[in-house]
């Protein structure tokens, strides 16, 4: 890969991260990725006339005699394409800042002795690997101090400046700068796997290095590898914290459910609600249930058949903490519950705003949202939760990020509850011939449409966009393969099977955008 990664010349951003320039005030930073080849301690104006391109010019003595001398030095630096001018504070003036900007010359103000600064810089520039080693050590120290994933990524991004870094889990960015994962023409990506317990790949650190600075790749890789351990530690800590909290919240919600008299295990049947009082432990969690509640059910786009992974719960919690701190988020069964509480009947405006906030996250992580009606008190909340869940299942048809409001769903909600997968398995047994046929999908689609149209071939052909004769011949072939729907006693069952197969075979909505 890179033959001499550690001896590549330093850039301005790198110098700014170590002492002594780390203490300097950047009055104007034209281009932080400017290479720095040399340091010049300019005591006289004579010296300014001989600086070479890509120099750091440190002004001193006569050359730092006042506002005019800085103006003259900036001009000389501009003429000779220096990288940056470093000036003692005494010679700084506000008009010089304007001039630096106008000439596009980086200008740093120091309070330290310019001679010391120049000497230190000279050492750093002549041995970039040393400067980088110092940096790596400093960076490792800072990384170790971090106790959160965001903190770790923050250190990496500050350290690497114009090289964005992100942490991804299963391809989605969970922390850091999303620019890192974007494929860009003149950038190369550096990737480092992060393994969790049992060497199971857990996440990946991705950095996007601009090609002109690609010889930094080795250095970037070093830093990313250094970040692995602090990341895992932060993650474990967070998981410990959050799994406790998730369990606590889940228990609390179960208590609410009981208060709302909903049988905890029955997920489908609407129940009788009577008045119930909110409790102090729910408010300890920051939950508010008095007044009117409107619930959101967040579900993975595909029925996972079990609880979603705890990482996803963690991710949602993080999103909520950041964007919707007032809204609870509780893992429940195959999804998550959140709700919005208001003192009196709402029009749904606040909910729409909340939904707008959630949608990008939902889209990124292949989730759908269902919104329940607004009802009073704890029983009202429970009712809204059930409604939201129904709506969420319907939303799956719309693809990732789609949102369905219960008001718009009606009886169609019932279909959303069908265990499509299990019914499809039944089809394998009852309709083995059909399932073996290569054109099964078009046959099932045609029969389903005919049934949806109440048996009308012409309506079905119009809806499918094929000729009536085609419909006719497909129906005939389906019957041959066992899909005989003429018998009224079997028609409902076959209609359901066709619906389930159709739903299953339809491309999962993950890639379909709204």
């Amino acid at each position, binding site marked *: 890969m890179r033959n001499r990664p550690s001896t590549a010349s330093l850039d301005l951003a790198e110098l700014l991260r170590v002492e002594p320039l780390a203490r300097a005030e950047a009055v104007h930073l034209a281009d932080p990725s400017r290479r720095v080849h040399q340091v010049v301690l300019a005591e*006289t*104006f*004579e010296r300014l006339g001989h600086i070479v391109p890509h120099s750091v010019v440190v002004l001193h003595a*006569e050359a730092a*005699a*006042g*506002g*005019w*001398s800085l*103006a*003259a*030095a*900036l*001009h*000389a630096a*501009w003429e000779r394409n220096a990288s940056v001018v470093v000036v003692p504070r005494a010679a700084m*003036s*506000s*008009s010089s800042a*304007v*001039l630096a900007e*106008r*000439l596009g010359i980086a200008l740093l103000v120091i309070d330290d002795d310019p001679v010391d600064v120049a000497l230190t810089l000279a050492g750093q520039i002549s041995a970039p690997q040393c400067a980088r080693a110092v940096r790596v050590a400093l960076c490792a120290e800072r990384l170790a101090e971090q106790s959160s994933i965001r903190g770790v990524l923050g250190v990496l991004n500050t350290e690497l400046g114009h090289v964005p870094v992100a942490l991804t889990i299963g391809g989605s960015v969970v922390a850091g700068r999303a620019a890192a994962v974007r494929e860009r023409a003149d950038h190369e990506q550096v990737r480092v796997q992060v393994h969790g317990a049992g060497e199971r790949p857990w996440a990946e650190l991705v950095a996007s290095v601009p090609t002109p600075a690609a010889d930094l790749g080795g250095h970037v890789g070093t830093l990313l590898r250094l970040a692995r351990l602090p990341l895992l530690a932060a993650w474990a800590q967070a998981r410990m914290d959050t799994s406790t909290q998730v369990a606590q919240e889940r228990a609390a919600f179960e208590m609410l459910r009981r208060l709302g008299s909903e049988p905890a295990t029955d997920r489908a049947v609407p129940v009788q609600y009577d008045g119930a009082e909110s409790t102090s432990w729910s408010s300890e969690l920051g939950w508010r249930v008095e007044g009117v509640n409107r619930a959101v059910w967040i579900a993975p786009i595909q029925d996972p058949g079990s609880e979603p992974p705890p990482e996803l719960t963690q991710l949602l919690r993080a999103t909520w903490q950041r964007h919707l701190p007032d809204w609870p988020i509780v893992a429940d069964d195959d999804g998550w519950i959140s709700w919005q509480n208001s003192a009196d009947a709402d029009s749904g405006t606040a909910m729409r705003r909340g939904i707008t906030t959630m949608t990008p996250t939902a889209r990124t992580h292949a989730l759908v949202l269902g919104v329940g009606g607004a009802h009073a008190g704890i029983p009202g909340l429970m009712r809204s939760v059930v409604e939201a869940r129904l709506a969420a299942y319907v939303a799956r048809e719309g693809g990732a990020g789609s949102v369905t409001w219960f008001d718009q769903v009606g009886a169609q909600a019932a279909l959303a509850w069908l265990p499509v997968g299990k019914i499809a398995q039944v089809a394998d047994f009852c309709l083995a011939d059909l399932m073996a046929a290569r054109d099964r999908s078009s046959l099932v689609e045609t029969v389903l449409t005919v049934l949806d149209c109440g048996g009308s071939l012409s309506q079905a052909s119009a809806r499918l966009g094929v000729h009536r004769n085609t419909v006719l011949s497909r129906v005939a072939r389906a019957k041959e393969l066992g899909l005989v729907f003429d018998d009224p006693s079997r028609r409902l069952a076959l209609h359901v099977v066709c619906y389930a197969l159709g739903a299953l075979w339809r491309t999962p909505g993950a890639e379909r955008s709204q």
Partner: protein
Amino acid sequence: MSIGYVGSGKSITAADIPALYEGAKFYSPAVGDASKASLVSWLMDLLERNGPVVLVRPDALPPQVHCVSLCVIGSGAALADLPPSGDEFVLAVRELEHVMHRRFGAVYPLAAATISALVPLAAASQLDVPLLDADGMGRTFALIHHTSMSLAGLSPAPLVVRGPTGETVTIEVRASARADTLLRSNVDTLGGWAALASYPCTAGDLRRAALPSTVSRLINVGRLLLEPVGADVLVTRLAAVTGCQRIGRGRIVELEHLSRPSDVTIPAHPSSVVIDEIGGQGRLFRLELRSEIVAVFADGALAAAAPDLVCLVDILRGELATLDSLEPGDVVDVLVMPADAIWYSAEGLAMVGPTSHGIPLDHPRRR
């Protein structure tokens, strides 16, 4: 007392005084008009009473005629507030005559600019001697040994200062540079300004040592300045007569004080004026001030420097903007005029060039 002289001279009459005043201000546009009324009225009155003053070139006088330079040393503001009683200059000359046991047959301005260009005229009228059409600076420099006479090897001493307090100080020194240092503290005690009689020498000395025609040109420039023509026409005319050039036009955006280290030998602390160019290349001008404008930087590049004479013309008023009344927001033209050629010699630049003001850059006219 009257001196015969060879060749035709001119004379200055009361009617020339307003033009002389304006021209003198142009060649040292530092101080405002606070003393104008008193001085102009005094001079006009003198010339009306005593008749015109004869203006002669040094080579029009016999070479053995003793001459003495006169100037106002100290602050123009102090003189404005405490104008002369009227006898300071004459008595300074008389005291120097007494010290040197000789009579002076002519007076000349040490610096033919600012109020220092006017007072030798008053003294000439009072003493009834001719005024020489020559001076030692061609503008004003900060120190009394910054003269063409010094460059030619003449000494300012012995010299006499007389203040508005009625007190007189005589100084005899060997090293020219010491004279100014000894003078300054005395001037502060004398009320902030004083009449200075110095560089006693002969007309023959001045033929080679003084800058010629520097008094008569003031009247010519002053006549231009007195015509109300608007800034653009004025600048064009001044360029034609004085060789000045406009560097740029801009708005004053900042006044900085103590903007560079100062030493105590030169009066007035360093300050800077920052001007944002209007039109043109939109440059940022930086004017370095030390009593006069001593350097102009355009985007950091040295565009003009002492001994160039830099002055500002207030665009809205079509008149010179003096350095004691600049305000942020004023729109000005920056004009640069070359000084007399001797100031661009190596010795001249060492004495009054940018390096003497702590700006060790090559002079733009020498690059």
